[in-house]
């Protein structure tokens, strides 16, 4: 709250919050799917501006969080091999595998590089023909066009020493998994703005119709989030379930068609395991037949990986929106960003890390009881 009053459009934000208070007559649970939006909501205290009944549920949209432990372990095993340059975005460096993390592999002599763009990894492959360069392709649909282009360029240049360790997951199947769960408690969705900048939002109307839930394409700034919540609440109060675009300055219905064309060429849909949730059918991408030779899992046959998740960790319940991070017994005790037990504490975009970093150690109910939480 403190932050929001200092925010450029603090007054407009307060006005939007008042409008939400005015239209909301019943309790609603709204899930923001994207980890970046979770981060922004918690950091800006947007959930605390809402009427008591409007609850924000934090979804599984943090790619770092949902990357399976087994794949992290594979990354560590590949990165530790001599003759390998292992490239990653910075946010994967400290994600713990069963033993150690990429930063520790680097410290032990592994050649681990942080790149800004996957094309930087392709350049490293060109400059180091005697090395195998592997890029850790983690992400949702937003990141996929970059990774697809890197493989496409590598193929065009005939590079034999570049490969992609793919951990690509997709938003619509995850939403469907949440909506079709027997204990479903989500009434509406905020759709991830930047995912939709790539994919558009043509995939969502059938889901909104089938499950009778409103969905609003939403950005990341405080006003965007408040506007997305406002529109979602208005639809819920009206009994409507449409897909609405509250991020028109960035997102078009059809998305970026050039990107979608290359994605369809380079990737094919596959079942993917989500850390903390389990396998969701047809929820990810792997390299298509034409690009399979660039698959690091094919090139480096890593076997004998035995992963062990913490029995204390309830990140699956957090990712499905069944509990808030602070409702987990291990939160802030055995599990902290320095010692994460599971997926959602690992990344700064994970719901548990966001709660931890912005001091949400007590539950919303406790806060409400002290009168500090709501307006």
């Amino acid at each position, binding site marked *: 709250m403190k932050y929001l009053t200092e925010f450029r459009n603090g007054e407009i934000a307060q006005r939007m919050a008042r409008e939400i208070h005015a239209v909301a007559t019943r309790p609603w649970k709204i899930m923001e799917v994207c980890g970046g939006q979770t981060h922004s909501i918690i*950091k800006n205290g947007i959930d605390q501006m809402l009427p008591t009944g409007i609850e924000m549920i934090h979804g599984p949209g943090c790619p770092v969080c949902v990357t399976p432990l087994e794949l992290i372990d594979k990354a560590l095993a590949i990165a530790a091999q001599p003759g390998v340059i292992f490239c990653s975005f910075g946010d994967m*460096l400290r994600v713990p595998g069963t033993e150690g993390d990429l930063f520790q592999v680097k410290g032990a002599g592994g050649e681990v590089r942080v790149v800004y763009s996957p094309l930087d990894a392709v350049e490293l492959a060109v400059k180091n023909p005697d090395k195998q360069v592997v890029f850790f392709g983690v992400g949702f649909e937003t990141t996929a066009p970059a990774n697809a282009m890197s493989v496409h360029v590598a193929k065009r240049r005939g590079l034999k020493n570049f490969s992609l360790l793919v951990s690509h997951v997709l938003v619509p199947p995850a939403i469907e998994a949440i909506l079709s769960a027997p204990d479903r408690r989500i009434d509406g969705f905020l759709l991830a703005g930047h995912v939709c900048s790539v994919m558009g939002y043509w995939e969502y109307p059938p889901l909104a119709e089938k499950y009778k839930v409103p969905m609003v394409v939403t950005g990341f700034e405080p006003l965007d989030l408040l506007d997305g919540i406002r529109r979602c609440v208005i639809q819920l109060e009206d009994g409507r379930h449409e897909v609405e675009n509250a991020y028109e300055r960035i997102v078009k219905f059809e998305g970026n068609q050039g990107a979608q064309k290359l994605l369809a060429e380079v990737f094919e849909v596959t079942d993917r395991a989500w850390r903390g949730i389990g396998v969701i059918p047809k929820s990810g991408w792997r390299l298509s037949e034409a690009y399979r030779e660039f698959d690091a899992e094919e090139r480096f046959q890593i076997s004998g990986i035995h992963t062990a998740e913490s029995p204390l960790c309830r990140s699956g319940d957090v990712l499905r929106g069944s509990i808030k991070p602070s409702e987990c017994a291990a939160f802030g005790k055995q599990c902290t960003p320095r010692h994460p037990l599971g997926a959602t504490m690992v990344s700064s975009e994970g719901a548990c890390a966001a709660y931890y970093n912005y001091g949400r150690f007590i539950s919303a109910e406790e806060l409400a009881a002290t009168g500090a939480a709501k307006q």
Partner: protein
Amino acid sequence: MCLAIPGKVEEILTEGDLRIGRVNFGGIVKRVCLDYVPEVQVGDYTIVHVGFALSKIDEETALQTLEDFRAMGMLDEELASEEEALARAASAPQSACPDGSCSAK
């Protein structure tokens, strides 16, 4: 991770068969692939994720968004250099432990 940052295209080059722009994000300049936004020209603003432009946007929106992302501390991670990313990883803990159980490390 899925954040796309607005920047201004200052120069467009052809590298191999890629269309590469020099894009300025409020002072930090990066090489960015413009293949997915053929409509973007020098002087335009575009949102960029991991070195790829995804969509053209207007200047006013771009500048406001950049200001907001900076205020929220969301630019540092996305635009970090390799040295900065490694330095951040070296000081890994994102915050102190509330119960003091990890203060020994």
